[in-house]
């Protein structure tokens, strides 16, 4: 299994002094555990109003009264994405429909969309959680924030939007749309903060550079990025191309949206907001806890969500937990980067490969832009992998020898990181499709052949 590397990031520049938005972020561990237990009991009670959860709890032979310690969490049944699909559209609602004030949905990139609902109090909770990680990562009321997440069913746009307003900063709800327009808005309105997916942040940097703008020409100072897994190398690339600090945050619509976890100024992992969620790190095969500090699948139980609570939701996100105290004073356990998903993991000739590993390898090769596409096929008996790598205009070398060297270095790095030989194809800048949402990194032709 891939290990997550946490890179020490050093001191932050002035303006990023540690500040708590909510004292609850620094709750002593014993008080936090007591709060979690009380809220877990309430959650199980609430979930038991939903037929699907009631059945699952019955099969597991457990009720709210059986939850006497946090260890009893492990007696609860798991919830998976398919449970949400089976209860399409809102069969998992735990409150009367009239209490629902908002409905969001997952992007549906891996099947039918799934919907989640919010009561007024859920929205208030969610907004506060987003405000917490934004403030932890430098947001102050005087800032202007450019939101390049789509506004819609996806939780990213509205989730960040209201969190920013809660902090008292100014939101530019730019939404989706073409990238040159984003660059112009950022420049004209002088936003200091950028919100989008990491791959889109990089694309905004590319477009700004193509328009002759240097990082100094924009007022941007930092950004909060999430919505897809990314690497430490991509963070450095974004920081370099936009001249900003990049903060990582984590969330998923099934649980609440962005705000489940976020980085503080130490930037060595994201604090899980444990007064609202319990996170477990389990081996996806055995469903037993992984040894301390190792990568496993995150399994999340909501503690305060009213409309659509989740019991032990299997996120399929693979990451490690770090229970060591953080110098910032926040007491929430820190999760490392999501190194992959237990279901986007590719098995190539028997070896497990994550797209994020290919990205890591590409970024090790100086002169290779991290826009890439992995194509897996099985023309004969064996799997074959082709990686299309976009060149940046400056990467063109007049000597064929240097171009072949570049290709060979990509080949060697990918082999070193993944243990797999992939065929490398250099393509012209802009040749790969861009999208403001989740970047498409893998095309698996084998699945098409099977289905």
């Amino acid at each position: 299994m891939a290990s997550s590397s946490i890179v020490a990031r050093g001191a932050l520049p002035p303006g990023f002094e540690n500040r708590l938005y909510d004292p609850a972020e620094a709750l002593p561990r014993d008080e936090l555990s007591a709060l979690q237990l009380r809220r877990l009991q309430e959650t199980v009670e609430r979930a038991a109003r939903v037929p699907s959860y009631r059945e699952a709890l019955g099969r597991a032979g457990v009720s709210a009264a059986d939850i006497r310690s946090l260890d009893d969490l492990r007696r609860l049944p798991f919830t998976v994405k398919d449970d949400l699909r089976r209860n399409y559209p809102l069969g998992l609602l735990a409150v009367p429909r009239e209490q629902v004030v908002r409905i969001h949905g997952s992007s549906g990139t891996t099947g039918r969309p799934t919907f989640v609902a919010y009561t007024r109090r859920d929205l208030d909770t969610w907004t506060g959680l987003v405000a917490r990680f934004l403030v932890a990562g430098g947001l102050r009321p005087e800032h202007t924030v450019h939101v390049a997440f789509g506004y819609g069913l996806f939780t990213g746009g509205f989730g960040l939007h209201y969190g920013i307003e809660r902090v008292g900063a100014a939101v530019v709800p730019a939404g989706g749309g073409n990238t040159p327009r984003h660059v112009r808005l950022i420049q004209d309105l002088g936003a200091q903060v950028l919100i989008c997916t990491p791959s889109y942040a990089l694309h905004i940097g590319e477009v700004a550079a193509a328009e002759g703008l240097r990082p100094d020409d924009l007022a941007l100072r930092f950004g909060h990025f999430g919505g897809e897994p990314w690497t430490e190398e991509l963070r450095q690339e974004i920081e370099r191309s936009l001249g900003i600090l990049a903060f990582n945050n984590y969330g998923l619509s099934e649980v609440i949206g962005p705000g489940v976890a976020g980085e503080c100024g130490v930037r060595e992992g994201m604090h899980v907001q444990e007064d609202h969620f319990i996170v477990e790190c389990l081996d996806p095969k055995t469903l037993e806890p992984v040894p301390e500090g190792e990568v496993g699948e995150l399994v999340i139980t909501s503690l305060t969500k009213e409309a659509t609570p989740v019991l032990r939701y299997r996120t399929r996100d693979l990451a490690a937990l770090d229970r060591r105290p953080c110098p910032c004073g926040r007491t929430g356990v820190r999760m490392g980067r999501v190194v992959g998903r237990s279901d986007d993991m590719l098995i190539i000739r028997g070896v497990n490969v994550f797209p994020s590993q290919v990205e890591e390898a590409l970024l090790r090769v100086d002169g290779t832009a991290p826009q890439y596409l992995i194509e897996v096929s099985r023309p004969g008996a064996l799997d074959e992998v082709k990686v299309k790598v976009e060149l940046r205009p400056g990467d063109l070398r007049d000597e064929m020898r240097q171009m072949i060297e570049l290709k060979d270095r990509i080949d060697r790095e990918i082999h070193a990181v993944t243990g797999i030989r992939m065929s490398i194809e250099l393509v012209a800048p802009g040749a790969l499709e861009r999208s403001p949402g989740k970047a498409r990194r893998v095309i698996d032709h084998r699945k098409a052949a099977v289905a």
Partner: protein
Amino acid sequence: MQIRQLSLFLENKPGQLRIPAKVLGDAGIDILTMSLADTHQFGILRLVVKDTDRARAVLEDAGVVVNVTDVLAVDVPDRPGGLASVLEAFENAGLGIEYMYPFATRERGRYATLLFRLEDPAKAASLLQQHGVRLVSPAELFARAG
């Protein structure tokens, strides 16, 4: 003495060679000479034109990846052993050749003109002249091309 050469990145798929040729043609830019280096996945097309800057601009507008590289034009005596004598001068001057290709010229019978890519073209030019190699200036080269 350097000749400014355009280098174009071409992906190995149909139409990739035609696009730059069409773009230059539509802009009324004459290709004086060219050479294609290729692997099975991508190629580098090298071109010499009179108006390098304008050619680069129209190519880039059409989405082609372009670099400008300096090369030297060398007159090689058009007789058996002519190329060997010039290459001997390169060797004596301690110059390594990255690549070379011929320039279409009207001096047939007297000289064959070759374009050479060398590591440091400015330094190489003066060294080669000291070793008696006949270099062709851009003005003369373009005049010969007509």
